[in-house]
């Protein structure tokens, strides 16, 4: 059935997409070829670039996971198996389209060329950390990369993305917004707020639901996934909705491109459900064997997105196993080098990487008297505790 789904015009009525909200847009077939109207017809360079970013994302995850286990930081979250859902949209969007991610879209930052060293500095909360050691590891922020500061509170980014998109429309700007959240998080009221506002103001925004079938220990049924699809939510709001094979990088790219074109042409919001699978634990704090069988991973329903893209490139004669081996090695080396570089700035300590006054900055634009007094207290405590620091 890959290739069997119709591709309505980007300017169609929202309800023309209704059948796609309960279907599954697929492009790559078992024959490793691209099929049907959703084939984005990307050139081999683009496909290889996509493969590279996905491989790099995975290599990064592997190393950071190990780093956490070695005590270099407190926490890490992998996106293993879900790389396509961030890398492919990042490539389909303009580089200055604003993204409002959840915590599992490291692939976007990597694709947009944010330096790995900066990511690791943040993860280590070290001297080089642009966020000054304040944020939990992986809660990146980069205005320069149009990457919104990640929140620990689920789904809050979604009405914000809609607000940004509304602002862009108000200003006649051509940039659009895109946001990501897990299927579990769609249960939050904030996501409903996002859908209502997006619908009422016809905001130029893409709402990406990453349905990796798990929310920590809860199967997607606890977010309503047993009754209908998450893309079907779009039907209820009268906005465009697409359900796409999230492990098929070409399908994800095509759906993102469709939604981006639609939004940019003032066609309004699109909700995209990316059907995928969380191959690893929720985070380094989680042990999934307590709630799902180890076998489940082997039955990974839709195949590894990296392997699928690799096999496609090989099938069209634009790649081979040796190049893949070389790429994997290269990615590992890149990450290793970045890690070494970042470690020069230190690993997670007890906060001595940053002057204590920084702790009080950015609460407000300026420090009111009470924060100045508290900063003085903190600085005095530091001097007592670490007279040489």
């Amino acid at each position, binding site marked *: 059935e890959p290739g069997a789904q119709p591709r309505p015009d980007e300017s169609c009525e929202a309800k023309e997409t209704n059948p796609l909200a309960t279907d599954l847009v697929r492009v790559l077939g078992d024959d490793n070829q691209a099929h049907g109207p959703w084939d984005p017809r990307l050139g081999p360079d683009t496909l290889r670039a996509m493969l590279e970013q996905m491989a790099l994302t995975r290599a990064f995850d592997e190393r950071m996971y190990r780093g956490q286990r070695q005590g270099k930081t407190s926490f890490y979250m992998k996106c293993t198996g879900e790389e396509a859902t961030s890398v492919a949209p990042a490539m389909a969007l303009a580089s200055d389209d604003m993204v409002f991610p959840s915590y599992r879209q490291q692939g976007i930052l990597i694709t947009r060329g944010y330096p790995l060293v900066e990511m690791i500095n943040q993860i280590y909360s070290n001297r080089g950390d642009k966020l*000054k050691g304040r944020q939990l590891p992986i809660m990146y922020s980069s205005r320069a990369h149009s990457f919104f500061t990640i929140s620990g509170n689920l789904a*809050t980014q979604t009405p914000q993305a809609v*607000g940004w998109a509304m602002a862009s429309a*108000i200003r006649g700007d051509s940039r659009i917004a895109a946001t990501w959240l897990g299927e579990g998080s769609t249960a939050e009221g904030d996501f409903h707020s996002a859908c209502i506002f997006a619908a009422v103001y016809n905001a130029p925004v893409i709402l990406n639901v990453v349905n990796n079938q798990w929310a920590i220990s809860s199967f997607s049924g606890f977010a309503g996934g047993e009754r209908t699809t998450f893309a079907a939510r779009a039907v209820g709001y009268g906005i465009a909705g697409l359900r796409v094979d999230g492990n098929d990088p070409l399908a994800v790219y095509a759906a993102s491109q469709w939604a981006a074109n639609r939004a940019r042409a003032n066609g309004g919001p699109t909700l995209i459900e990316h059907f995928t699978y969380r191959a690893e634990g929720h985070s380094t704090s989680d042990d999934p064997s307590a709630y799902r069988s180890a076998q489940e991973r082997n039955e990974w329903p839709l195949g590894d997105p990296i392997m699928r893209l690799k096999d496609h490139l090989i099938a069209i004669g634009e790649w081979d196993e040796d190049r893949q081996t070389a790429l994997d090695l290269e990615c590992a080396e890149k990450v290793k080098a970045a890690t070494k570089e970042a470690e020069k700035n230190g690993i997670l300590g007890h906060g001595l990487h940053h002057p204590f006054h920084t702790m009080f900055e950015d609460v*407000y*634009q300026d420090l009111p008297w009470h924060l100045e007094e508290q900063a003085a207290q903190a600085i005095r405590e530091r001097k007592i505790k670490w007279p040489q620091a």
Partner: protein
Amino acid sequence: TRNLNMIEAINDALDIMMSRDPSVVIMGEDVGYFGGVFRCTAGLQEKYGKTRVFDTPINECGIIGAAVGMGAYGLRPVPEIQFADYIYPGLDQLISEAARLRYRSAGEFIAPMTVRSPFGGGIFGGQTHSQSPEALFTHVSGLKTVIPSTPHDAKGLLIAAIEDDDPVIFFEPKRIYNGPFDGFYDKPVQPWKKFPQSRVPEGYYSIPLGKARKVRDGEAMTILAYGTMVHVVEAVAKEKGVDADILDLRTLVPLDIEAIEESVEKTGRCLIVHEATRTSGFGAELSALVTERCFYHLEAPVERVTGFDTPYPHSLEWAFFPGPIRIGEAMDKILEV
């Protein structure tokens, strides 16, 4: 200058900021075509268009959440929450998002919004149109909380709040939208235009956040109040002939601690008055600060006069309200020492 009531003064401030700064947008339930249930945004949609003044879905989470995104874009949103009692569905977006944005992004993203909301009781609004939840916001670092007590201040403070790059909660004491209130509810409302504080300069001016207003100079005791209660304590002090040093705090966070210390060190006595429920109300913070910072000057216990720790009951609202008797008793107690 013109004589304006508080609604007109707020409308004027909004109008001026809309015209000075194209990034200012106004949003909220019924604020657009209708001009707000209290008419504070009347005429603005007509003047500035639907893209800058617009009605929203009834979803306070979305109102604040969208405003956060608009702020990140570079706009300066002024969302209205129709009643302060209805701000709770938007609290997470305020507490976890607007208030934290600058901090967690190390200054890359800010939320320069001003959330306007009518608050307080005394209009027979019952439990859900009378609350004074300001204390909750003062506990959240990253937010500023502003409460005007006169048309003059409402305009100047609102302009300052809109210009401020931090998220500001701007609570408007709805009991005094049309005229000040001395606490004697059986007397007819006197319109603002009879009072000098309704004399509002034309055009742009701003009153800095974090500066209290000395309402009255006196020696007998310091009274700290804000919003509606400023007028009530003033009237009671006058009626009782108490030579009070009255401060209208205007901004709760950041607080004008200097003015407070100076006054309490002078008078040695301090009365704190607010309409909100007592336990963990902002009066607690004020009392704690006064004790911490002016301890050796204290000649009498620091007293709080507040609403009771109950919901705001519809027909018993004047029994709930911290009126002249309650305030007068506390004054006596403070002076008796």
